[in-house]
């Protein structure tokens, strides 16, 4: 175990906190006080869909730096029933539960 200087780490943490907080708050302060042009509003309307998918896709499709479209990719395998349940039932907690049970079962079965 390396010895890290306590105060240096503290400085890093404060710096990290600042650069994390500023991008989280500035757009809210800047955009919430004015009426947005329709094109911008429409663009922002697509952002949630785009960002959720951009976060999710690599988690399901990429393993160890390469696309893994095979049955040993448990994340992808479990996503199939999870997507079906989300789409058919629209049940939020049901979807989360099915996803977790599928992954647990897959591990138990040694997939």
């Amino acid at each position: 175990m390396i010895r890290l200087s306590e105060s240096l780490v503290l400085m890093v943490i404060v710096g990290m906190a600042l650069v994390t907080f500023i991008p989280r708050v500035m757009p809210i302060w800047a955009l919430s006080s004015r009426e947005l042009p329709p094109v911008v509003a429409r663009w922002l309307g697509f952002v949630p869909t785009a960002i959720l998918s951009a976060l999710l896709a690599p988690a399901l499709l990429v393993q160890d730096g390469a696309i893994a479209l095979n049955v040993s990719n448990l994340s992808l395998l479990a996503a199939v029933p999870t997507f079906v349940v989300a789409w058919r039932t629209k049940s939020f907690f049901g979807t989360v539960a099915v996803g977790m049970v599928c992954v647990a079962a897959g591990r138990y079965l040694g997939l």
Partner: protein
Amino acid sequence: MTQVVEQEMEGRPVPVPEGAQEAEARSVAVWRGVQQALPIVMGYLPVGFAYGVLARKVGLSEWNSVLMSVLVYAGSAQFIAVSLLAASASPLSIVLTTFIVNLRHMLMAAALAPSLRCWSRVRQALFAFELTDESFALHVRRFSEGRTGAAETYALNVTAQLAWVVGSTLGIFSSNLIGDIKPLGLDYALPAMFIALLVGQARTNLHVVVALASGLLSVGFLLAGAGQWNVILATLCGATFGTLLACRAERKR
């Protein structure tokens, strides 16, 4: 009775009957917020635990390890920062990396901004401090249904961060007796939550197209070596693509 209550509330001029009703309505709202955060809690506890273990193994003090979860509160950035610290990277490069990794929250904040118009700046800042990928995903849905109540919103956020901090703390104090951190499929709670919310977002064919485009682009950018930029680039392209298609469809009509 009135006086006692008013004294207890530090002299704030709240008429008692209404105040009591308000307080009850607020506690219902808080409870609703806590409940909505449950999938995040299930996901954050084990991931926070893993962070805590790693932070201690790398040599951060207990205090600093917790402090990072309290002040920074950003999962992937914390993992990266800890491994950079272990590799004795310069403080500036760690802060810069954190900035890049967390820049995607800018897009999320921009998307939520129109719903927070009536909030004061301080309240907006308190909200923004606890904005993460996961809380964003839940708030998008809540706000689109018009549920922008402050009590419910903060309750959700605070519950989620509490889970992150508690998970981190548990990890920090059990870092020397730990083997496997993936029991029971808990690590799949967050991907499953994203699946549920993404499907909920896919209201029109255009949204499905945008989701497919930005998902594939995100994987493409990642494999092409875009590093942490993949999510931001894919989101910018995907949302722009969707806007162009929508504008074109409108002109045709």
